[in-house]
């Protein structure tokens, strides 16, 4: 069918346009009818960490729906051999798994975690905001901008199609011409910039805004994980930025770094994985931090082996940079390189194992309360251990010659990424929901969500190990009866639907919690241990008028146990300045315009967009909120 401007498209695009327009129209009507616009404007113009964190999570859920639908299409197409489900074969299928992977990693997992960091980290530190509230808003809107650019592609019938790893030379314009993979480049480039800024913000916040007395050795583990993750981002993301820049030159300006006559396809793989492997630790370490806090809270015990927990995350972070070539065992780097990278990879299992045992021993002799967040944390332990042990199996370089790029790998990384990151994000959302909104999510529905999700999960991904061992490569849109992987795939598809259904319970839960005017909870509904539970729920914009003074780990808990109050002080450093501003969202829009100029090679739009972006530096410089604040300071 032909669409105006876009040209010839298949029916999935048309259906998506129609559905999007209907839902969009309905949303507009609903927002207007319910007079929600002032609220929306308030959020758009905010620099408050809690509101920004909430928006991160909302958008992540939106994209989770997108990526989840992609997953359902993938699983439906693969349900039976020689299948022809709707349009999802060949190029369409390739577009679907590329979007699925990219969206899940960059626009679901990352923002879920960054959202939770925004909400919880300052509160856990006793800080009133992040160090740079304005920059935080910029980060968020850059993420939105990048995510929209990437997700737009599909609607213009140009979804990226070279896999989330975009291996050259397939990703070069010789083999995938057209705008498709340009969307990939610009989507990641712009959201990546936002991520880098967030990392800077987190590090400065953790380094300089901790409550009096909170030495690093008294800091909860979620901020610790955030600190390590942010440092990884600081080193890993710039490499991706440069890799994408070079790929862009290859595609746009005729260089041939990664393909063509002189290029080196393996060089792309090196750059990509020097970023990519740390990236998977960037995704999982914050989840470790969340689980640590949750397991300790709901065992009513301090975390077991705090010091070794901190050392472990740091070690994992460091080792994370020395293992990238385990993704490249089959490219023929030679036995020496493969052996070295096999061993460094195996080494990571040691600090990870330490963490698992410390979690287990935190529960020992404790009082383990089965709340929804705790259920997710408990579900995480066996699931992640399976993902971890298959990880060690993959590290066996020679054996990886068989596993590599097969469904075994697909199973492995979903065990780690869903078992770690996604379960962690769910746990964190249930746990900190009172801090975000002042309400508790319904526990019963939460438990339904957990059980359906975890059962569906194992049904989906456990069989995939065997499909891989029976010779099913990843990224294939079909297989035959003779391949002998039908049963594995069929079970996997059923599991996937179960996971899909479990997500309906989340929506129902959200709906129920907010519709019925569920009464608000007090500041400390879980009987928590860390400073966020000393503030009101939801956390106000200025949560700590007086800052608590901390003299040990979990100081709030011990104060409660001893039936005293935490001492407080007013004598602290000045707070970061929060403001209301619409510059960030405008910048996001302008960047999007510029990106489209590049994606479609429209020079005039590039210049227009690029010029406007530069203008934003000037606007920012001249509307600096410090002007006002320092002026007051000078007078007093």
């Amino acid at each position, binding site marked *: 069918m032909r669409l105006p401007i876009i040209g010839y498209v298949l029916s999935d695009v048309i259906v998506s346009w129609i559905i999007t327009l209907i839902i969009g129209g309905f949303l507009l009507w609903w927002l207007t009818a319910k007079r929600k616009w002032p609220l929306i404007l308030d959020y758009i113009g905010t620099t408050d960490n809690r509101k920004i964190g909430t928006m991160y999570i909302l958008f992540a859920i939106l994209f989770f729906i997108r990526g989840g639908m992609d997953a359902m299409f993938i699983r439906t197409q693969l349900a039976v051999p020689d299948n022809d489900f709707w349009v999802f074969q060949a190029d369409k299928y390739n577009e679907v798994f590329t979007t699925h992977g990219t969206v899940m990693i960059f626009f679901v997992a990352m923002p879920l975690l960054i959202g939770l960091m925004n909400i919880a980290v300052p509160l856990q530190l006793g800080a009133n905001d992040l160090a740079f509230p304005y920059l935080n808003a910029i980060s968020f809107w850059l993420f939105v901008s990048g995510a929209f650019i990437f997700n737009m592609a599909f609607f213009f019938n140009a979804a990226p199609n070279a896999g989330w790893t975009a291996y050259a030379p397939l990703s070069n314009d010789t083999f995938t011409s057209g705008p498709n993979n340009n969307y990939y480049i610009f989507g990641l480039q712009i959201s990546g910039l936002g991520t880098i800024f967030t990392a800077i913000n987190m590090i400065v916040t953790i380094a300089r805004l901790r409550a009096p007395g909170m030495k690093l050795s008294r800091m909860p583990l979620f901020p610790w994980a955030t600190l390590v993750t942010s440092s990884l981002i*600081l080193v890993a993301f*710039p490499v991706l930025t*440069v*890799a994408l820049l070079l790929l862009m030159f290859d595609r746009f300006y005729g260089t041939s770094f990664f393909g063509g006559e002189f290029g080196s396809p393996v060089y792309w793989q090196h750059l990509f994985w020097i970023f990519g492997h740390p990236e998977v630790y960037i995704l999982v370490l914050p989840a470790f931090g969340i689980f640590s806090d949750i397991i300790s809270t709901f065992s009513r015990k301090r975390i077991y082996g705090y010091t070794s927990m901190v050392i472990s995350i740091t070690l994992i972070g460091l080792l994370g940079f020395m293992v990238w070539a385990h993704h490249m065992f089959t490219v023929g780097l030679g036995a020496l390189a493969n052996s070295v990278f096999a061993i460094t990879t195996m080494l990571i299992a040691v600090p990870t194992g330490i963490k698992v045992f410390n979690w287990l021993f935190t529960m020992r002799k404790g009082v383990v309360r089965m709340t929804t967040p705790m259920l997710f944390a408990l579900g995480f332990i066996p699931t992640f251990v399976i993902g971890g042990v298959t990880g060690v199996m993959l590290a066996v370089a020679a054996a990886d010659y068989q596993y590599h790029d097969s469904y075994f790998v697909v199973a492995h990384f979903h065990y780690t990424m869903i078992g770690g990151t996604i379960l962690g994000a769910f746990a964190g959302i249930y746990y900190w929901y009172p801090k975000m909104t002042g309400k508790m999510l319904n526990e019963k529905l939460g438990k339904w969500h957990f059980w359906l999700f975890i059962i569906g999960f194992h049904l989906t991904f456990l069989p995939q190990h065997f499909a891989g061992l029976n010779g099913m490569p990843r990224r294939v849109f079909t297989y035959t009866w003779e391949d002998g992987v039908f049963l594995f795939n069929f079970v996997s598809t059923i599991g996937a639907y179960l996971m899909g259904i479990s997500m309906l319970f989340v929506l129902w839960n959200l709906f129920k919690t907010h519709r019925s005017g569920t009464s608000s909870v007090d500041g400390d509904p879980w009987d928590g241990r860390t400073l966020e539970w000393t503030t009101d729920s939801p956390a106000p914009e200025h949560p700590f008028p007086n800052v608590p003074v901390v003299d040990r780990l979990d100081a709030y808990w011990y104060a409660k146990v001893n039936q005293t109050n935490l001492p407080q002080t007013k004598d602290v450093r000045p707070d970061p300045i929060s403001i209301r501003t619409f510059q960030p969202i405008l910048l996001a829009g302008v960047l999007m315009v510029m990106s489209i100029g590049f994606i479609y090679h429209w020079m005039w739009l590039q210049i227009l967009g690029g010029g406007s972006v530069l203008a934003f530096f000037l606007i920012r410089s001249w509307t600096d909120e410090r002007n006002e604040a320092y*002026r007051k300071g000078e007078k007093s």
Partner: protein
Amino acid sequence: MKQMSDVLFLDKRFGFFLYLVVEAIMFATLFATYIIFTPAERGAHPSEVFEWKTVALTSIFLLSSSGTLLMAEKGLKNWSRKWIWVGLVTTFLLGAIFMGLEIHEFYKYAHEGYTLSMNNFLGAFYVLVGLHASHVAFGLGWMINLMIQFTKDMPRALFIEKHKIFNYYWHFVDVVWVLIVTIVYLPYLF
């Protein structure tokens, strides 16, 4: 309570240093790219492209601009408007001359047929040195902005803050240039 501008300045300085780490890693990756692909098997060899005269000239101008910026820094310390002006203006002029030479260099190479698609040595060269040049160009714009802000009524603490952040940037860009000279040009000049 501590002086607000002091504390917030320290926050910002730390944040900006972290940002410079990010930049440093980007440049490091580009240096690696350059080293890997240079000299290329086919197409131009660096020794036939580079000229020591251009390198020397550009280096003199850019490096001395870091020196002249010290005058402005001194002016910031004792709050001497004169020194700040002298420092900023000379730095700007030197930087602008560098920019001119750089553009001329690129133009000349392209004219001689050494375009970025000729081989990967040239590709890596243009991306790396071009990224540096765009940093210089951005810095020039930044300086103009600073100069205008200097003429306006702005809290002194804020101007000092903005100026200092710029100084870190400019010195950083200079250090990158030193690395470019030693890694990109020098091995192929003599």
